[in-house]
């Protein structure tokens, strides 16, 4: 019932068609040409495609576009990332992500090997990316910004490729309706309903194929989103996005809303081209039809992009940026641990070990502890059963995997 894409999946599993695509034969702009073209006030409509699969780099190029493009311009950027989990700016990685399986060296059951963890600059919830997923990003003037406009454009592009179940929902996501086709109902231009739309609880739930997030500045608005086209990893996604600490953590900030997902079942390059055409057509009225320009690894030499890139890869951005949260170890221990700016702020509860635990743990930055058991054992004067319980629960609930530094 789900993916109309079984056929494609088997093809995609064994090859990487995107990488082999014709677009990769083209050369990226030089750094100075990119900077000049992007900032040129005459370029009101611009279209870019990234050749890089590095999520940190693609997010940094996007951010550079947001901050550098002319105030009245509209800029599209498309990219595909290697497998990674991307959390929203104000989210808690310990409660949103199954951190323990990110760095698994071999492909064990239900894991993909090395999966990057990224905190983006925009809001919203946690998503999984891989090569079957096209990311689109549109930066436009804040005065023209609505949360739906660009998703509506993407829905029109999908429908032109025959995906007539696609619509924008009330959460600004794109979903595929799963109801029976109602005769005589035509969605025509309405991107918010389809002939397959059924009222809540009156039929099968729509399946999410694209989620939205936004970054706003006073003059500009960036809307970016995933588009799940042909991911071979659908069954694994929930495994990555389900944390063992979820029920034990009370977090400030933003909690993800989980939705059933599906592949759309389109070839990545086919959709990429359609989306570029749709974007050009929508903005052709501005009197310009942009040619698609390539960006990629070489643009790390632009200082502002390099700076953003390094920042996204710091431990502080990943862990210390986490909004305040508490971890409760009930019913195993009468202990509540409060964490602020990535450091343990206080311990509450009742235990004979409390004083010693406080002296060891309060002020400790989580990101500096790779092994909770070794950490506690080397510091406790006496080791009791309670200490072992604490160490085990910290290891399960507050692991800090190494962020992958190598490319």
């Amino acid at each position: 019932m789900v993916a109309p894409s079984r056929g494609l999946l088997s093809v995609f599993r064994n090859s990487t068609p995107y990488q082999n695509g014709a677009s990769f034969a083209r050369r990226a702009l030089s750094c100075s040409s990119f900077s000049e073209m992007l900032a040129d006030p005459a370029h009101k409509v611009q279209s870019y495609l990234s050749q890089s699969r590095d999520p940190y780099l693609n997010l940094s190029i996007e951010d550079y576009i947001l901050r550098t493009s002319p105030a009245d311009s509209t800029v599209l950027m498309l990219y595909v990332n290697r497998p990674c989990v991307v959390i929203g700016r104000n989210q808690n990685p310990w409660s949103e992500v199954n951190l323990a399986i990110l760095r698994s060296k071999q492909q064990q059951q239900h894991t993909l090997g090395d999966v990057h963890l990224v905190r983006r600059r925009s809001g919203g919830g946690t998503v999984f990316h891989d090569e079957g997923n096209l990311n689109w990003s549109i930066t436009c003037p804040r005065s023209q910004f609505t949360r739906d406009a660009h998703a509506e454009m993407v829905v029109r592009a999908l429908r032109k490729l025959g995906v007539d179940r696609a619509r924008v929902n009330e959460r600004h996501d794109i979903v595929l309706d799963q109801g029976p086709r109602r005769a005589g109902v035509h969605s025509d231009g309405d991107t918010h309903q389809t002939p397959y739309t059924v009222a809540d609880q009156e039929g099968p739930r729509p399946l999410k194929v694209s989620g939205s997030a936004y970054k706003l500045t006073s003059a500009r608005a960036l809307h970016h989103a995933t588009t799940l086209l042909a991911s071979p990893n659908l069954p694994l996604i929930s495994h990555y996005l389900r944390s063992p600490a979820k029920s034990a953590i009370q977090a400030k900030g933003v909690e993800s809303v989980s939705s059933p997902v599906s592949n759309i079942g389109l070839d990545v390059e086919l959709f990429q081209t359609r989306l570029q055409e749709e974007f050009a057509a929508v903005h052709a009225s501005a009197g310009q039809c942009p040619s698609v320009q390539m960006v990629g690894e070489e643009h790390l030499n632009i200082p502002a992009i390099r700076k953003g890139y390094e920042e996204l890869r710091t431990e502080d951005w990943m862990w210390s940026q986490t909004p305040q949260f508490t971890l409760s170890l009930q019913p195993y221990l009468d202990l509540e641990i409060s964490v602020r700016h990535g450091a343990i702020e206080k311990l509450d509860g009742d235990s004979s070990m409390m004083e010693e635990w406080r002296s060891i743990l309060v002020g400790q930055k989580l990101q500096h502890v790779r092994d909770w058991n070794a950490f506690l054992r080397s510091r406790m004067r006496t080791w009791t059963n309670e200490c072992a319980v604490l160490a085990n629960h910290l290891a399960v609930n507050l692991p800090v995997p190494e962020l992958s530094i190598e490319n």
Partner: protein
Amino acid sequence: MCQQWQRPQSVEKRLFSVSAAMAEKKYTEDHEWIELSEDGKTCISTYAAKALGDVVYVELPEVGLEVSEGDTIGAVESVKSASDILTPVAGTVSEVNSALEEKPSALNKDPEGESWIAKMNVEQEPAGVLMSKEEYAKFTEDD
């Protein structure tokens, strides 16, 4: 005596004297306001708060943070959108409104009153455009 040079230590040393005229709220083109008074309270304007939609998280600066004009002193999340809050003036953060951590939605209710985000020790006359309430109202109409 480097320390003293870096941090004006008392109210008396501020460039701004406390007067009725200075207690007036001033607005920036980035839709922030500041009270150039003893408090130096700052936040986003009602206009900006309405444009953001329902606020679900407010990131406050740390007390003691030294900033230049236009630097980020906080961030807000609303309906999947992250937006930075910029400081209209250079100075040091002297106090933050922790109530917003517990209740971010208060920012929608009273962004120009109870829900200020930080108080600034203003150290320098701002270089950027600052508008009066009337001028700002005109500015947002034209926007």
